[in-house]
């Protein structure tokens, strides 16, 4: 296996395990986090806090390096402008997140349940991506 694939596999496994352990892949828990006025579950603030606690300082030092371990350059988004597509896209995503309780990572990690329900949800998400990419011909 080449090094890039190995790095991606290890990162993916840790990521998927973390999503399940944290409860982020449980849509009921996500929707309770978003339900400030009702049954609020503050856990997801700790999930994001835990991730940022180490990623913020680590990114700072990692990005000072000239290149990644496997030799390639860092491939980072370069745009700095706040455009209407960013805000509209994030709004549409947030509405869908509130309706379904799933965001992309947790939906994929939840495929491990081998349930038809999660599979249907992931297919719906992929259809949404395809509609955007085919119809709007953007990105």
């Amino acid at each position, binding site marked *: 296996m080449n090094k890039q694939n190995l790095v991606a596999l290890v990162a*993916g496994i840790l990521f998927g395990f973390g999503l399940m352990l944290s409860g982020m892949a449980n849509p009921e828990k996500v929707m309770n986090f978003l339900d400030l*006025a*009702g049954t609020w579950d503050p856990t997801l603030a700790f999930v994001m806090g835990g991730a940022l606690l180490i990623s913020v300082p*680590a990114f700072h030092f990692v990005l000072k390096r000239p290149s990644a371990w496997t030799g390639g350059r860092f491939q980072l988004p370069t745009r700095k402008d706040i455009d209407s597509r960013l805000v509209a896209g994030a709004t549409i995503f*947030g509405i*869908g997140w509130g309706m379904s309780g799933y965001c992309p990572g947790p939906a994929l*990690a939840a495929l491990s349940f081998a349930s038809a329900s999660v599979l249907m949800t992931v297919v719906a*998400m992929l259809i949404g991506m395809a509609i955007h990419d085919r119809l709007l011909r953007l990105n």
Partner: protein
Amino acid sequence: MTIIDFTPVTGLLGGLMIGLAAIILLLGSGRIAGVSGVLAGAMGQASAGDRQWRWFFLAGLVIGGLLYLSFNDFQWGAAAATPAWPVLIGALLVGFGTRMGNGCTSGHGICGISRFSVRSVVATLTFMVAGFITVFVARHVIA
């Protein structure tokens, strides 16, 4: 407000693992662990030579889930039930919106904020607020 099901310890531990995964992918391969972006690239948006690692990462997400389930024998109710139409419509909007806004909870919310990207901070605040409002409307206005 009633606080329920609060599990700060597993939340924090899971969050640390997610953060570590993002660090490994950046330090190891120089790539951003944004799931919607990795997925869109794997499905065809990226050039042919830039797709393979994406499938390894995506497969890892499922393998990580399986590994977790090998220690914990249970299934969340939501994963077992037939998805109601709001879930499917919602998932469709998640797919569409994350492509339009160039990122999701991981790409903007973790990696973007870690780079102090203004676009990612704006996107994260926007989808959080949209999510809070959507659940408020669904549970306390319509229902």
